[in-house]
């Protein structure tokens, strides 16, 4: 610290009563305290309850429930399914994430038009139901460790494609996912950024979504999380359940191997 900076520091201490460095420390401690105060009573619980109800309810043109939906561990198995997705499904011959798989089930079992749901904007109509279902299904794997399969060739391929997407720079700002999530210990404004090119640890990044966003009072699944990342990257719009979003999820999910899921979480 040079003399001037020292003097400036002392001056600001005298005038404003708080040195910038101190304010800094207080800010991050203060935010931890704020988050702790909100931890009890996550509104995501409202969506969990709704999702569980939707799973069991007879709905759609076929007036059926989703209780026979195969999320990868056999028809109707919900517990533990979330921490193994995305994965390859033989019936669709595709790698699918939780939300695109739910749409497949809503189409096959209940008779909904899957393409119509995929076209519906987030936060409207059946998309709200997909989010609530994903929230409940995620909650049923709370505390379990991520363990995505890389056995099928398409799963390996999607990981490789996802890695390329993670590092793909573009848009007006040259941003890639890695611009913000490629290094340890960085932040945007006051928000800590998880490093996602390897496991960011328990309950961080991929292991924290779906999450309730306090800033807008909305429940977000991984599809919307990625969609809004791409929006802020100034990229064009990624289709709901598109291969790009699923490949990227595969990359993030495989990297998160061993991390404990806390979803549904509470986020800024």
């Amino acid at each position, binding site marked *: 610290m040079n003399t001037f900076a020292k003097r400036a520091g002392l001056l600001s201490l005298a005038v404003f009563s708080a040195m910038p460095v101190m304010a800094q420390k*207080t*800010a991050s401690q*203060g*935010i931890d*305290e*704020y*988050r702790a*105060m*909100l931890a009890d009573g996550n509104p995501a619980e409202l969506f969990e309850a709704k999702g569980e109800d939707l799973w069991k309810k007879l709905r759609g043109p076929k007036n059926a429930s989703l209780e026979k939906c195969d999320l990868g561990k056999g028809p109707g198995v919900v517990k533990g399914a979330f921490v193994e997705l995305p994965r390859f499904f033989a019936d669709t011959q595709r790698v699918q994430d939780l939300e695109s798989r739910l749409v497949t089930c809503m189409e096959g079992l209940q008779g909904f038009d899957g393409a119509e749901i995929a076209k519906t904007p987030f936060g409207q109509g059946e998309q709200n139901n997909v989010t609530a279902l994903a929230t409940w299904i995620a909650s049923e794997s709370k505390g379990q460790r991520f363990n995505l399969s890389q056995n099928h060739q398409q799963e390996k391929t999607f990981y490789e494609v996802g890695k390329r997407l993670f590092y793909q720079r573009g848009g007006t700002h040259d941003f890639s996912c890695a611009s913000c999530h490629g290094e340890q210990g960085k932040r*945007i*404004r*006051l*928000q800590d950024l998880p490093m996602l090119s390897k496991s960011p640890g328990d309950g961080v990044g991929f292991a924290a979504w779906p999450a309730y966003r*306090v*800033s*807008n*009072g909305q429940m977000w699944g991984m599809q919307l999380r990625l969609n809004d990342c791409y*929006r*802020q990257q100034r990229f064009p719009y990624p289709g709901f359940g598109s291969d790009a979003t699923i490949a990227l999820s595969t990359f993030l999910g495989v990297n998160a191997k061993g991390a404990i899921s806390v979803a549904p979480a509470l986020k*800024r």
Partner: protein
Amino acid sequence: MQSRRQTLQRSAAIAALLASAGFPQFAQAAFNKNAFDAKSVQDAVKAAGGVGLIESKDVTLTAPDIAENGAVVPIGISTALPGVKQLLLLVEKNPLALVAIFQSSEALENNFLTRAKMGQTSDVYAVAILADGKALWAKKEVKVTLGGCGG
């Protein structure tokens, strides 16, 4: 816009209705529109029946130093003082200061938590109004930060 007299008349009517419905001893409050329409802390407390504002260490305000987002700020009021009628939470710089009123009740502790929206950094007030109208308050500044990418 409702006149104060109309509001009072309506409140009285609702109170009578509730009394006849079998809760005679419970201090049932109809929505106090005047208090919630007040812009300032002072006016809101006055509309809720508070006559004098006095700072007090016996009223505890729970609030974070800093809020990561102003849309959800956890705030609470508690007090062990006897004779409390109403407990109020207010945000000074919100367009309408009053957030919530909790009626004190023998069945409950005077200890309430909720979450408020804050448009900007502001003092938050916890006010306990006693039977004689005295309004005892505690306050704390909560910093609201601009989060995320700002987009």
